[in-house]
């Protein structure tokens, strides 16, 4: 049986984190408001766990070759379903409900894996190195299509994760780091121009950045065409940011600022961050003890079963608990990178990196959000947050990783 050949170190890390997660959901269940509503999340999560374990075993049953073979088809199907969701839905629509059941399917979740597979398939089958902007068009399109469709749902958080996938895999494919930097340079330009515009720093930050960028472009001898495009893109961003910003109404400006600096709006989105920080900060070094969190107990923490489950760790287990979870997560990512390193097959290796990238995106954005380092986008924390769809995505990914591990030396 193929299960015997599993990477049990990987499985151990996954199980450790999953058990920790279920314990935290159990803890979140103890709040009075949840108790009153009669929903017991941890039991549901355990039920989901049984289902996703089956998902893991099943997904590890397909050979890497099979996955590669169907990757474009699956990718296409997901694109169609994302479009269908946008066309049929009214307002915020993130899932289909299977007819006759109350099981919801979120195409955005499945899109992560299929996009990884499709991009891996494309890069693995290229004969040439990717080293110009022209070569990047198709990989960017492969990721941007589902990302934009998801952004329109609207689900900003998930679409941001796609950029982690893109950059991670492009890096692994051998795209020079300078190119990856140039790709995100217009975004950096935008922020620096904004900061300069708002006058929060007295330095002409954007100008300095632009000069630095030009030097970088010249020094690295980028193709002329690409150099022109990158320079123009940054210049336009820098120049247009100011008038664009000023054309916004004050409340629109405030909304954007509150997105990046939630503390600006203590009654709205900032409230969550403040409460989250209070929970984390009051946990101290050792925490208040399991099930003893007072902030979570009184529901000061919003969405503590899902997006804001990590502050519970901080409150009940303190800095020690936070460090343990973060170390476990890093070990998991480290292990996946190691797997990608020893895997000979390009497709398999790239897929492993894609999976590591999307997990990394989720972890950094979610945990960063709880301390106000990242905007609140509603991204769940892998293996911790309550919710079946995302847990399934993770476990299917782990199933694929297991199959990659089993086939690591087969060429």
């Amino acid at each position: 049986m193929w299960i015997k050949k599993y990477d049990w170190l990987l499985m151990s890390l996954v199980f450790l984190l999953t058990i920790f997660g279920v314990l935290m959901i159990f803890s979140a269940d103890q709040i009075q408001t949840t108790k009153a509503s009669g929903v017991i999340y941890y039991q549901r999560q355990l039920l989901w766990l049984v289902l996703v374990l089956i998902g893991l075993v099943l997904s590890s049953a397909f050979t890497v070759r099979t996955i590669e073979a169907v990757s474009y088809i699956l990718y296409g199907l997901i694109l169609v379903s994302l479009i269908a969701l946008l066309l049929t839905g009214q307002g915020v629509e993130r899932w289909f409900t299977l007819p006759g059941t109350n099981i919801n399917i979120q195409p955005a979740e499945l899109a992560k894996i299929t996009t990884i597979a499709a991009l891996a398939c494309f890069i693995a089958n290229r004969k040439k190195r990717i080293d110009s902007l022209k070569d990047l068009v198709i990989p960017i399109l492969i990721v941007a299509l589902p990302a934009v469709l998801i952004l329109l749902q609207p689900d900003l958080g998930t679409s941001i994760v796609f950029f982690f996938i893109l950059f991670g895999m492009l890096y692994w494919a051998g795209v020079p780091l300078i190119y990856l930097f140039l790709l995100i340079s217009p975004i950096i330009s935008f922020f620096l121009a904004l900061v300069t515009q708002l006058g929060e720093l007295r330095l002409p930050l954007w100008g300095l950045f632009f000069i630095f960028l030009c030097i970088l472009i010249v020094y690295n001898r980028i193709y002329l065409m690409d150099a022109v495009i990158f320079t123009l893109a940054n210049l336009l961003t820098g120049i247009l940011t100011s008038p664009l910003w000023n054309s916004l109404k004050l409340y629109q400006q405030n909304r954007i600022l509150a997105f990046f600096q939630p503390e600006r709006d203590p009654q709205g989105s900032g409230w969550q961050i403040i409460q989250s920080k209070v929970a984390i900060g009051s946990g101290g070094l050792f925490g208040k003890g399991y099930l003893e969190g007072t902030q979570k107990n009184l529901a000061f923490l919003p969405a503590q079963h899902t997006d804001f489950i990590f502050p519970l760790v901080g409150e009940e287990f303190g800095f020690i608990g936070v460090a343990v979870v973060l170390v476990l997560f890093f070990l998991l990512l480290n292990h996946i990178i190691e797997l990608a390193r020893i895997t000979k097959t390009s497709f398999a290796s790239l897929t492993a990196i894609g999976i590591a990238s999307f997990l990394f995106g989720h972890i950094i954005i979610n945990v960063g959000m709880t301390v106000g380092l990242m905007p609140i986008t509603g991204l769940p924390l892998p293996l911790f947050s309550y919710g079946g769809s995302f847990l399934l995505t993770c476990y299917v990914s782990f199933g694929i990783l297991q199959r990659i591990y089993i086939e690591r030396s087969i060429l």
Partner: protein
Amino acid sequence: MPYRGLHEESVSDRLLKAQVAKVIFLVPFLLLLTVFFRYQVLHTTEYSLHSEENRLRRIELPPPRGLITDRNGMVLAENIPSYSIELYPQPIDSMRIALERLAVLLNLDPGKQEQLVQKYRLRTQSPLRVATDIDEKTLAVVEEHRSEFPGIFIRSDMKRSYVYGKKLAHILGYVGEINENELEDERYKDYIMGSLIGRSGIEAQYESLLHGERGAKFVEVDARGRELGPFRDKPPILPVKGEDIQLTIDLRLQEAMHSIMEPVEIGVMVAMGPNNGEILAMVSKPDFDPNRLSSGISGAEFRELLFHPNKPFLNRTIQGLYPPGSTFKVFTALVGADLDFIKPEGKSLEITCRGGLQFGKRFFNCWKAGGHGKIDYNQAIVQSCDTYFYQLGIKIGLERFCQYGKESQFFEKTGIDLPNEESGLIPDEIWYNRNYGRDNWGPGNMLNLAIGQGEISMSPLQLANLYATICNAGKRFRPHLLKGKVENYRLADIDFAPEHIEMLREPLTGVVNSPLGTARGSRLWGHERKMAGKTGTSQNPHGDDHGLFVGFYPADEPEIVASAVIEHGLHGSAVARYVRDLILAYIEIKAGRAQSEVAKISSTNPTAGN
């Protein structure tokens, strides 16, 4: 570098790439750890404090106000439960919907709803009070349909209830919520927004006794402000109930007085014990319902009361000033006796009344146009002859008369334990010079003062107090409402000789009981003991004259003194009947009869007497 495809990379290339990737992943993790370290280790104290504050809510426990009882322990003011409806903090839209649903039940028109939404906007973290003091029917309906109104909460409170409503309105006063100006006052430093405070009457006078001490409980609340239960580590501070107060008021007499005064539009009656200064009953018309004021009266309704031409808030027993008219002749008589114009033996000074007196260029009328003819001291009081007192007044002289008036202190505040008492007025030369100019008045003004007219004015309580002192052979007590030791209210005796005071008893008894007395119609027929008193008419330049009467009973050994002023009541003789009815009620109550029969008393009823 020729491209060899991912699978053709050398092992060392792969290794380098993987190491770089691991570092790229590691940096954000380290950054996060640093931030968590800062919050959880370096700044944990601040956040721990914040976390305590988050969940701890102090709920103020208002102290139950002290009860107010009458002299027999009958409760006059108490605290009864009242219910208000609140909505828990929720998004504005949910709040709007909740208010719309409650609209029919609580009579919330759209304007009022919007007003509440705006109020909520200001403090979105605390519950919104939608309706206060709802009636039991509404309460039952809300209770029954609770599940249909999400976020609803019924809060029980105490409110002040005045058991006898307007019957004691001016005595008890009423309470209201403290306002912002008062909150800044040093005296009210323990009060908070929403604390009840006495607004007038006894409630205001004895605020410090009645109020008690506020307590608090500490509860854990959740993020939506819902109370989850008592806070483990902080026991509640129990409120201390205000002191109960016993008044000197006799409820039954007060009720009788109130029903006697019911037909009067504007008028006053006050009854007190001459031997102790205790106020037994006090009514000022028009009055108001203190219960309406204490349970959130509307602004319009309040303004209507406040600006009503008849001024219902005015307690005329202590704030209404009237020239005492002929009732003041007793004082002129006392001064005359003190200056030896009238002597106890033989009661000298006889005059002939020809319907008035020529003084200088002016003729001063006696009320009896035909004149009283030859008249002595006793008959001058019994028949209230003005001419007699004009003559006596001329003998006394303005300067001396005013001196006596001032020194008697009867025009000063009596010192009754009610807020905003007014002092009366006895003019003197300085006053005349200042108000009229040096040449615009003359000794003729003395003639008016001698019969209690003109610039002289007193409150009905001051008048009652004057007669109480006369009844008491000069022993003086401070009128008061709070029941306490008699000695505490004893004041210095007045400066008139007891035998001079005693001289007044016979003629004052005659006013009511002799065939020529001005109040002969108010005689207590068939009663063993007699009522005495004096009629008066207070000249009113703005309309019909005010009628006055001060009576006491029993004439020979007074237990009760009552003064009454009926505005536009024309004559004291008419007012005497009101006082007589009160005395009858007093006799009846004393005899232990049911208060309900008071109205049926007729003069043929035998009386138990003393």
